[in-house]
């Protein structure tokens, strides 16, 4: 057995034969031609055929992966008819008396370089589109096009990288998984894999040895691992995972796209909790309506120094973009207590759960807070971001936070950095916040109840102490009464209230929460459909 690994862009487990995909890597030869007019006519013919193929690809993609993902082929057609691109090719053929293939390759390089040099990540990515259409033209002109990627049996594709046009050309039901050595989480290939619902691993260290072609492999799209000739133990382990996936898929098929509405018509916002931008794939796969808690700690925990505004902006932006207009509630840093980082230089405390942590750090060291807020507001233009503040105990804290938020917005306005208005909410996770929730509700746009800390503080039970397990009872009436009180106070002030703690995913309480009037539940992605099932079977009156 050989194990390779890469980064997963879409979950699922697949087993089957490996197909090593190689591009037709024709070295484009430079040839002298006598009749430029004739060569141009030959080029035009090739271009017409390429346009026709792109139209067919567009129609196939429309059927397989939907309009939003198919659009790329419509854009490719427009690029292929761009007058600058065509003028350049015609001019080279005429002036240099060279063959059409070489003129296309040269023009392709020039245009791709132009895009690669732009100071905009999106436009830099367009260089790949120029190369993709040019390679198609060259393959047609040199008659080396291998259009049909037909396989006898379903396969797992391994390639250096795949262009979008290559990905959709594979027969959909013959494709088990995609593994590429390159690629990015935002590439069209990754997005297509997600839409096609097959595991995909990118940036994998797999070696494309010809001898591996046809070998039996298992791809674990959850961990990004690829097993070549897996041993008995691995096979068994993966079979269990595959069975779980199948069960989940069945649930998915039944509930995906269905509304989160009770039998008597009450609607719940069913969101998911995540701790890393790469979790978004799982959120979409499980059909959550949004992200109810995006823990921003990973940025701080995975870093050896304070993450810069730019690093944070990129992460928030990626999540907002990938969620495509669905709500993304990002919680500001919740460092401290059990999550510590060296560079924060936090002093050792007797009682860290009640210590210098979360919003307390932000209010005492506003420069750390402002960096995060600036990144969040900058990312707000790219989707529907909301911001949530942890560990609130008083109205004064919220007012102070709002002052700092206003300062940040003012600074961005002065620098003419675009941003949208975002909803501001707070976590209700201290008994104090519960007791003043009537006043807090007038200050913010929403509440999200953090039941883990709320239980620990209310019952005076340390979550970290295993001996106290029997005393840690989140079903305690004290907790349920608090939740009910918070929801009432929220509604009285016209705002919504949700639950993002572990308790939100407690299926034995879903009905109780719905009856209390809880507006939102944010649960781990894997729990979304299970909660949906109960919501749809519940009557609240």
């Amino acid at each position: 057995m050989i194990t390779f690994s890469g980064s997963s862009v879409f979950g699922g487990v697949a087993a089957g034969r490996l197909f090593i995909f190689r591009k037709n890597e024709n070295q484009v030869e430079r040839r002298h031609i006598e009749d430029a007019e004739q060569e141009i006519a030959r080029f035009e013919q090739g271009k017409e055929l390429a346009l026709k193929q792109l139209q067919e690809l567009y129609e196939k993609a429309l059927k397989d992966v939907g309009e939003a993902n198919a659009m790329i082929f419509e854009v490719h057609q427009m690029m292929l008819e761009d007058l600058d691109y065509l003028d350049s090719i015609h001019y080279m053929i005429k002036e240099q008396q060279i063959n059409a293939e070489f003129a296309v390759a040269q023009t392709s390089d020039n245009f791709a370089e132009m895009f690669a040099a732009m100071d905009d990540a999106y436009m830099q990515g367009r260089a790949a589109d120029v190369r993709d259409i040019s390679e198609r033209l060259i393959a047609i002109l040199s008659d080396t096009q291998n259009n049909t990627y037909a396989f006898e049996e379903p396969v797992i594709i391994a390639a250096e990288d795949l262009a979008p046009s290559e990905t959709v050309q594979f027969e959909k039901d013959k494709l088990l998984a995609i593994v590429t050595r390159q690629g990015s989480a935002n590439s069209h290939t990754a997005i297509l894999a997600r839409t096609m619902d097959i595991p995909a691993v990118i940036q994998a260290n797999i070696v494309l040895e010809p001898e591996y072609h046809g070998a039996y492999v298992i791809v674990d799209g959850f961990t990004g691992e690829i097993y070549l000739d897996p041993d008995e133990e691995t096979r068994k382990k993966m079979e269990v995972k595959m069975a779980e996936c199948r069960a989940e898929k069945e649930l998915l098929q039944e509930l995906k796209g269905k509304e989160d509405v009770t039998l008597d018509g009450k609607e719940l916002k069913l969101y998911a909790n995540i701790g890393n931008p790469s979790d978004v794939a799982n959120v979409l796969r499980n059909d959550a309506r949004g992200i109810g808690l995006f823990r921003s700690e990973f940025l701080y925990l995975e870093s050896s120094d304070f993450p810069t505004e730019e690093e944070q902006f990129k992460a928030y932006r990626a999540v907002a973009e990938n969620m495509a207009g669905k709500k993304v509630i990002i919680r500001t840093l919740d460092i401290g207590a059990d999550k510590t980082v060296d560079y924060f230089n936090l002093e050792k405390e007797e009682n860290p759960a009640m210590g210098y942590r979360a919003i307390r750090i932000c209010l005492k060291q506003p420069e750390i807070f402002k960096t995060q807020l600036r990144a969040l507001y900058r990312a707000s233009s790219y989707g529907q971001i909301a911001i949530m503040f942890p560990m609130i105990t008083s109205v004064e804290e919220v007012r102070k936070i709002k002052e700092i938020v206003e300062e940040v917005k003012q600074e961005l306005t002065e620098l003419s950095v675009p941003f949208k208005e975002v909803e501001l909410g707070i976590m209700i996770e201290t008994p104090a916040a519960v007791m003043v929730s009537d006043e807090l509700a007038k200050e913010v746009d929403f509440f999200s109840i953090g039941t883990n800390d709320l239980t620990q503080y209310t019952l005076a039970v340390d979550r970290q102490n295993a001996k106290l397990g029997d005393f840690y009872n989140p079903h305690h009436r004290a907790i349920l009464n608090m939740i009910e009180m918070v929801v009432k106070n929220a509604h009285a002030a016209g705002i919504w209230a949700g639950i993002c703690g572990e308790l939100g995913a407690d299926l034995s309480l879903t009905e109780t929460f719905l009856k209390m009037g809880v507006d939102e539940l944010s649960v781990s992605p894997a729990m979304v459909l299970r909660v949906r099932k109960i919501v749809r079977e519940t009557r609240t009156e």
Partner: protein
Amino acid sequence: MKTFEYTITDPEGIHARPAGLFVKEAGKFASKITIAKDGKEVDAKRIFGIMSLGVKKDNVVTVKIEGEDEETACSTLEAFFKENL
């Protein structure tokens, strides 16, 4: 000659798809149409040219139209910007 200015409100700016749609729209008219940002002017009937401007949100673009159908072209394209960008 007709001309108008427009401030982009789309958060993604003029990316590949709207550039393509704009080219299609501009191609319907006989007039010579250009689009400019920060003094760089390109032919509005060429997708790569428009993309090369790298127009982002809040950038101001100037569209110039000259030709027999400039009146209709101007109102159509201005409406296109308001609707799509």
